[in-house]
């Protein structure tokens, strides 16, 4: 069997890729994609720890399902927000959306 560490390294790499995307992309949709990557990295960790450490309990899988549900909701809301912003501000570039600026 593949050692647990490999899976963790994969998840960490995925997480870092996502984080890099979130921090470096200018397009809000790309940022959402980065967030999805990060969430999926977490899912990999959850399932991996479940499989390697507690294969009898189902908590890891259930938790992963929760993460899926949350991420779906997040995408739905996030995309709706981006559409709304696109309509009113005519941009999806996050740097141009600075209404919150003090």
């Amino acid at each position, binding site marked *: 069997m593949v*050692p647990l560490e490999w899976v963790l390294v994969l998840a960490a790499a995925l997480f870092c890729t996502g984080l890099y995307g979130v921090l470096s992309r200018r397009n809000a949709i790309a*940022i959402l994609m980065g967030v999805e990557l990060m969430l999926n990295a977490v899912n990999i960790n959850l399932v991996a720890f479940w499989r390697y450490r507690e294969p009898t309990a189902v908590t890891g899988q259930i938790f992963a399902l929760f993460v899926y549900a949350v991420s779906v909701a997040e995408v739905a809301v996030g995309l709706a927000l981006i559409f709304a912003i696109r309509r009113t501000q005519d941009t999806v570039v996050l740097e141009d959306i600075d209404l919150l600026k003090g």
Partner: protein
Amino acid sequence: MSIFDITFNLAWLIPLFPFLAFVTILLFTYRNRRLSHQLAIGGIAVSTVLSQVVFWAAALLPAGGGQHAFESALIPWLPVGLESFSLGVYVDPATAVMLFMVPLVCLMIFIYSVGYMQGDPRYSRFFAYVSLFATGMLGMAVFNNLLAFFIFWEIMGTCSYLLIGFWYEKKSAISAGLKAFLVTKVGDLFFMLGLALLYAQAGSLAYRDVFSPQTLEHLAHTGFLGTQFPVAAVIALLFFGGTVGKSAQFPLHVWLPDAMEGPTPVSALIHAATMVSAGVFLVVRSFPLFAAVEGGIQMTIVASIGAFTAIFASIIAIAQNDIKRVLAFSTISQLGYMVAALGIGAYVAGVFHLITHAFFKALLFLGSGSVIHGLEHGHHVEQAFQPADVEQPSQPAIFNPNDMACMGGLARRMQRTFWTFLVGGLALAGFPLTAGFWSKDEILAQAYASSPAIFWVLAVAAGLTAFYTARQICLTFLGQPRTSAAERAPESAPSMTVPLIVLAVFAVGLGWAGIPEHFPGLGGRIPNWFGHFVGRTIETTHVVQPTTGATPGFVWQPLALGLAFALGGLALGWLVYGWKPVQAGEVDRVERAFRRVWLGWLYNAMRDRFYCDRIYQATFVRGSILVANLFHEFDRIAVDGLVNLAGRASQAVSRASDWLDVHVVDTLVNLAGRAGRGLSAVSGFFDVRVIDRLVDLAGLGTRAFSSLTAVVDVKVIDSAVDGVGDAVLAGGRFIRPIQTGRVQNYLLLASLMVLALIVTFFMILFLRI
């Protein structure tokens, strides 16, 4: 550990350097074009040097040692289930000659690309991709098991997709990339099934285990699924499916002509050094498996498909006008040659042709790229001199720099390109003393000895090859320029012509390494070094080989016939196209001749590639769209219907409760409202009379008290409150810059915080601070 072992272990590093170049370019240096191409060329140059070292070590290894292959120490690689794959490098003569050819040709192509891709907006990315491509090919050659072979094979598949569709602004490039990817995947599926079957039967995918005499014996005598058909033949045929896809054999040849949409160096890379050679190399590599069952049907199938492809593609090539498409079909036909050679058991001849073909076909592609480049240049110069609104009658409506009808007379303007192209063309046609002559002659000689049918097909294909080569050279370089772009075409830069010259040297000189011993005059004086060296690969597999051994004596018929066909084809081509120079706007001469004898339909079929693309479009593409539509309709009617039903049901329920609300609940509420209104009239009277009086009294008392406190309020409390407000304002002004309004800044801050927390945590955990 002897000096040879140390040398062979260098093979580990060969695929590494192009890969490092790929990673570095993609991650760090893609903004710097110059540095990017230097990295790519440097990576492949180091690989070339290492490969040459390994190759010469393998070549100088004493043959009598009984050790034909070197396998390095293994490292555990991929644990799967309870078992684990291990990885090592494996160098045998077949690997060694591939290592001689692949990086050298790649290096030439990379250097050439510097000139060719000049000014492309995605210049650095191009070099990153081609480096990865080289990694795929080199990795496939050096590692010791079929799983690694498959992985690198797929890396190449991905790269071909990326590179064929490199100019993705063109719609045709996108679809060509997709087509190449999907069609080769059909073959890859068979290859993968073969791998699974082999693993299930042999329990390993390492060459050493799979091609050991015991395993081959076992595979040859085990029936497939309880039948008498040996499982070795099934595996060999499944592997051959992969070859058919990758090496563009009939019926999966359709992707290769379209792959010309990519930049020309990519065409050279795909058609010469890497991708298509990979397919043939798979048969070379697993040849013991193909030969395991004596006289089995699998060899016949391989030979027939190869021979058919050879003649089929060379017929089509005659009727093509795109300079690169002619070469594409010529590649398909030459690959058919190699496959046919392997199919009749002419292992050494097949490998020899693979190597020589790589050099002269790379040369021809790069030469055609130089022509196209020159023509585009000429076109630009012409546009610069003339105002855009002047009509040019001699110019076709859309200028196509690939069309040979737009060329002509380039020999004088592009001398270096012409001479090198001529050398490559002669090698392709099998002109005596060029590399192509020696390898083709050997294939023909072996075919003559084993199967007359295959021999005649291949010999006719050789004649057709010579004919279309002569046609191409005449149309491109001889005669008078047929467009003003061709008149102004300049010679390409040295970075493009120098690789051509180097490749031309190999296109002639390489053949001298494999002259058969019984060849009149030259044979025996120059040892048939290639045959001895590569022949060692299969000698030690202890498998009965059909006709791999050298023919007992020299037979003159195949040589004479092969020569007659090659020279005859060349002469005929020159007579038709070179004797009287082709004029602008003239109908193709073969086409005219065909039409005169009522064979126009045949010419149309040849030009349209025997309608293969259309047939596939009508059956497979339409078919899958049909199935997709079917599922779409099912989804729309059945699945969506259920969802809609649920929606309607809840609508009905809500309508019912709406009625209940209006008619029952509202009435009740109104009733209660009316009762409340009566009650309030009574209490209102009481309120005015009694309570108001009391309240007024209290108000008077309060007013007196409040004027007293007002004094205190203004003096004491207000100043305190103002003070706090001012302090907050000042603080806010101080903190405000942090609040940029950019979400990503906040996220960055949060991530840094988390990082700091992690660091702190580890310091507490491990350092016990």
